[in-house]
């Protein structure tokens, strides 16, 4: 028990150091950007006295190290400051935009994992079969076709022509604000409110962008699963199992797949984090008010409080995913306990 506590303390300490480092690097990059943040706030026409007033309000007249200390102190107390772009506290903004991305990424990763893992296993088992070739081509397309283009094409076909799915945005405008915000994830909130019209509508809006994100992670998950499986399928213990008369399905799924579960957790965690950070373009095409777009817009306007706040959240998600895969590791793999 003591060892676990000590380990936990060390882990927390290292997480905290990572966090501070992240904060510092982002802060410095923000200040080195060739955009004048005061100008971004007051615009091009303001008088000199207005400019100076706002510069002082933003604390930019103080030395850089002083600015950082003030900022770090406030963040540790849960105060991320005000966003210039939205005129609201950054924390409030993050609470609004993060669930939008989390919802999209979660549906995306579910699609990616549910399809990607079995397809990866089958591609390995029936390697060089038609399925394997198709998957390889699909994977290649996933790497080379810009998601931006695929998004527009998807909208053109499934939204405009076939009318199977909803268009850009999370909901049709007339349903906006119909269900009370609890988690910020509209599908969850509408279930909590037992409002199926909103749920259906939200689903019809999320399915296309989530499928796209899912497709990209599917390509990655499938390829990784395939190569992990191939490694196992060539091992001698499988031959032994087969010789002993174990059914092939059991050989593949129980013996071989059982052994790749641990590295697969890392693969899925990475894929999830990739979706989170790589959703900017998808969010733009689909007018999805998520964190990727929030940070990008803020960055282009030198809205540093917003950029830092957003970066911290993404950083925390990475740290959280690491932690989670560590825990899952221990559950799945008895040796790690």
């Amino acid at each position, binding site marked *: 028990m003591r060892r676990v506590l000590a380990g936990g303390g060390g882990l927390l300490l290292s997480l905290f150091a990572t966090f501070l480092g992240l904060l510092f690097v982002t802060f410095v990059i923000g200040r080195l*950007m*060739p*955009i*004048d943040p005061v*100008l*971004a706030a*007051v*615009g*091009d*026409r*303001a*008088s*000199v*006295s*207005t400019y100076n*007033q706002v510069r002082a*309000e933003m604390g930019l007249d103080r030395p850089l190290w002083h600015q950082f200390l003030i900022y770090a102190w406030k963040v540790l107390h849960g105060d991320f400051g005000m966003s210039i*772009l*939205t*005129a*609201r506290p950054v924390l409030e903004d993050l609470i*609004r935009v993060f669930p939008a991305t989390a919802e999209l990424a979660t549906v995306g990763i579910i*699609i990616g994992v*549910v*399809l990607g893992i079995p397809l990866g296993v089958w591609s390995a088992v029936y390697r060089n079969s038609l399925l394997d070739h198709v998957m390889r081509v*699909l994977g290649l397309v996933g790497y080379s076709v810009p998601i931006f283009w*695929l998004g*527009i*094409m*998807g*909208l053109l*076909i*499934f939204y405009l022509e076939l*009318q*199977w*799915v*909803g*268009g*850009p*945005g999370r909901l049709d*405008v*007339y349903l*906006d*604000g119909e269900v009370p915000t609890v988690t910020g994830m509209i599908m969850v909130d509408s279930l909590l409110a037992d409002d199926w019209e909103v749920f*259906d509508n939200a*689903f*019809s809006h999320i*399915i*296309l962008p989530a*499928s796209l994100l899912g*497709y990209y992670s599917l390509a990655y998950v499938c390829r990784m699963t395939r190569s992990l499986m191939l490694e196992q399928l060539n091992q001698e213990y499988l031959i032994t199992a087969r010789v002993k008369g174990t059914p092939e399905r059991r050989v593949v799924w129980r013996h071989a797949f059982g052994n790749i579960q641990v590295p697969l957790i890392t693969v899925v965690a990475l894929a999830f984090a990739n979706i989170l950070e790589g959703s900017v373009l998808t969010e*733009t*095409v*689909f*007018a999805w*008010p998520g964190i990727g*777009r929030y940070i990008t*817009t803020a960055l*282009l*306007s030198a809205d540093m409080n917003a950029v830092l706040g957003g970066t911290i959240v993404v950083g925390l998600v990475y740290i959280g995913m690491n932690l989670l895969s560590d825990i899952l590791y221990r559950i799945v793999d008895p040796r790690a306990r």
Partner: protein
Amino acid sequence: MKTLLAALALGVGCALALPAAHAATPQDTLIEAIHLDDMISLDPAEMYELSTYEVNGNVYEALVAINPHNTGEILHKAAESWTVSDDGLTYTFKLRPNMKFQSGNPVTAADVVYSYQRLTALNKPPAFLIQDLGISPDNMKDTLQAADDLTFRMTVDKPYAPSYVINVLCATNFSIVDSQLLKSKEAKQADGTNDWGNGWLKTNSAGSGPFFIKQWKPNEIVTIEANPNYYGDKPKLKRVVWRHIAEESSQRLLLESGDIDIARNLEADQLDGLRQKGGFDYTGTAQNTNLYMGLNTKNQYLANPKVRQAIRYLIDYDGLQKTALREGWIINQTFLPNGVMGFVDSRPFKLDIDKAKALLAEAGYPNGFPITVNVASTEQSRMDIAQSMQATFAKVGIQLKILASDQKTVITAYRARKHDMALLTWGIDYFDPATNMSFVVNLDNSDDAKSKPLAWRNGWMNPELNDKAAALKMERDADKRKAGYQAMIQEWQDISPFAMMYQQNWVAALSPKVKNFFIGPSNEMTQYLTVYKE
């Protein structure tokens, strides 16, 4: 392959998704797709962003406004009439009786005083508009007064041209806010001073216009609803919704599928595509925004007026308009947008390589020189212009290097005079030629000058034109004033540190169901009072 991809992408979707029936937009609600990401505050005393002007132009009333359909005419809004004293210093406005705010409070002269005082005292970006009339936080108690409930009096510091003063007061920043309501929302700022309700008004509204602000989700949506207390004819629509759709092709898809009524930011290609398909209406109006290139005279080559003149002959004004820009921009080589008093359509320049060569030879650079241009790469049309210039400049030996970045970076460099050339736009602050004297007047060319007009940013000062501009600002004969600016344009065109190119033309595509929609020449002039859907 495409179908295969699509089938996979929707593999899960198809199994679960019901066909999403496309509900047409509700009859009493107008939904638009537009770029809203510039909106940072809804407070009229703080806003200086284009999309905010459009929203607040429908939410607030000022004393006076420019007629969107005839920009030479002043509309009487909250002010029924006004007089100017003989010495030209005191303006007295009689207010319309029976006007109410959205809260139900009456609109009185005290509200006008409060609104003008908070614009002055808050000292936010638009404060210079009123401070330029000599009204400051120190004197505002005396210069802004309510003589009675319906009489408002303003005293300016110099006998300005009345046309100038009234045109300035038409700016939406002079909107009348509900002082009773705002006083209850006042809070202390960080430095201990009163915030005049700014913290609250950033995200709310307190006006007397035809609509009020229902909600604003930054970078997502703005909704206004009909104001039941509006004094005039009630709006025909119950609700107007602007949705932020950054991607232009998404705007087109939404319009085509009927999920929005108006797409506001389609590019020329997309408009062409829609026209070929048919089924939509279009409306376009020349905007008060000029596209131009600043030529920094701090650069050794550009310091020579002959080089600057040569550059003006190296731009393919017509060719670019026919290819990359099309209906989005129209040629304008003056410092005023067409529609503003004093504009004259003087177009002395066209692409003329030989003339440019001769000018460069006279200047002592027959073989050209290297130079850079800062361009906002976020706008494809700007990159197109820069690339065209790169090609035409090369014909006379000028090696143009394009420095592409985002808009804010370009402006940061520009304001610090760190550019050689910069391709930018400039919109007017109010409908009066005095606003664009930024292109002409520079009273202090030192590096630490207090005021940094566009002429300063390009290191250029012309005392003679400074004097002329100062005199025109005081000219009380409106016709003489107009003629003065027209003459100034022609004098300035050959010597200025600018290559003026185009004026924006804003075209929107809309569903034929939408009636009476008109894009104003300036954002606040896009009015929704009489818009309706069939």
